[in-house]
């Protein structure tokens, strides 16, 4: 495998392509990937002043997003309904006020709960009507979705075996169905793992509050209580779609796994605050137990 590493959208990327590709081809594919990530970032990043979501945070009105917005907004709506509003793209302002803002001030200002979706936003495909200025945040599913977009681009180049890893969220495809051993990081000790997932032609996403954390907050915010959930230390989801896997890691902080499994096809593992483990029967991997 040829490993390509770079930083983008606030995390570290590691893209493995087949060693059989010549250097020039790799350079060409990587250029396309970097350009595509830039387009995504310029649309959805609330951390840059020139992005579409920053523009949307300044004025009400009708916004035509790129066509790639439609599947992500549809997933967000499903998760919003399944979690009684706990997973919501309207969380942007509250996250920003908690301190996770464009300049990473990490200083908490007075916070307000996001308004109900139907009060402020109408979505039709990739067209969004805002009744008032809203700071959207696609942090729950956006990275997973971008991993899928990058992977589709790689596949459009005729490449069938690859690994796209964005900060530990991973989509892996292998023509010979060789398994990828993914260590499941200990939520309190980044030099340890508590198990190993065995990934074959699927995606894995994890969510934990240990890195993107300041004060009593981390990057996941309960819109009702305006606090970061502490009852779960870490969650992993394995699914065919990285976007779905990513979105479900946040949804599992708020909703019953069985309710989510009746809608989505996925496997999960949850480490609770006492280090007890709940996992779906089919979660591909092993856990180290006391």
């Amino acid at each position: 495998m040829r490993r390509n590493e770079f930083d983008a959208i606030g995390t570290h990327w590691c893209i493995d392509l087949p060693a059989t590709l010549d250097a020039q081809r790799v350079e060409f594919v990587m250029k396309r990937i970097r350009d595509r990530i830039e387009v995504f970032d310029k649309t959805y990043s609330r951390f840059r002043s020139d992005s579409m979501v920053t523009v949307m945070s300044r004025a009400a009105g009708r916004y035509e997003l790129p066509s790639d917005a439609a599947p992500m907004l549809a997933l967000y709506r499903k998760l919003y309904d399944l979690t009684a509003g706990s997973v919501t793209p309207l969380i942007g302002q509250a996250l920003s006020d908690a301190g996770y803002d464009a300049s990473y001030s990490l200083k908490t200002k007075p916070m307000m709960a996001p308004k109900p979706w139907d009060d402020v936003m109408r979505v039709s495909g990739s067209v969004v009507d805002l009744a008032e200025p809203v700071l959207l945040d696609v942090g729950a599913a956006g990275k997973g979705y971008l991993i899928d977009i990058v992977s589709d681009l790689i596949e459009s180049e005729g490449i069938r075996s690859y690994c796209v890893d964005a900060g530990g969220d991973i989509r892996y495809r292998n023509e010979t169905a060789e398994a990828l051993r993914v260590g499941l990081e200990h939520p309190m000790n980044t030099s340890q793992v508590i198990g190993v997932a065995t990934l074959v032609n699927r995606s894995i996403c994890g969510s934990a509050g240990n890195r993107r954390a300041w004060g009593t907050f981390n990057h996941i915010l309960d819109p009702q209580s305006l606090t970061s959930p502490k009852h779960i230390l870490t969650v992993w989801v394995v699914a065919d779609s990285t976007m779905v896997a990513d979105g479900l890691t946040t949804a599992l902080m708020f909703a019953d796994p069985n309710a989510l499994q009746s809608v989505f096809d996925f496997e999960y593992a949850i480490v609770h605050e006492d280090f007890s483990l709940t996992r779906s029967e089919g979660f591909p991997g092993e856990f180290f137990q006391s």
Partner: protein
Amino acid sequence: MQNTVQRVSILVAALLPVVVLGFFVMKPKDSPQSSTSVAAATVPLTAAASAFTFTNGTYSTTVSYSSPGGADSLGVSVTLKGDVIVDVAVTEMANDPASQTFQDAFVAGYKTFVVGKNIADVQLSKVSGSSLTSQAFNDALSAIKTQAEA
């Protein structure tokens, strides 16, 4: 401690057949007070299991028992999928501190707890956890830590 372990073992031994067999004769959403498990208690587990096909779902009940501290109860729910128990949840309802201790130990006994191994000792291709953060975020975090210490 030895005493505690023994008493918890007895508690577990006493409760489990009642809890498990209780579900064999219950339907989902049956009254939690259902006590029809007594007659079934002499049936070997395997024989009982093979004689039934269960409806997938979560079965809940409350188990009452006597302790030196008086009457106590424990809420138990079991989730069945394809005739296999895929999840068990126990709700502690102890009335006195001693019972609380034993119920804590009981709960600890059935749950699976994870432990860490050093990454260097496990053969891995990748690691997944919380997303790696950018240098800008790490710098911001260091800055507020420095301020807090000043």
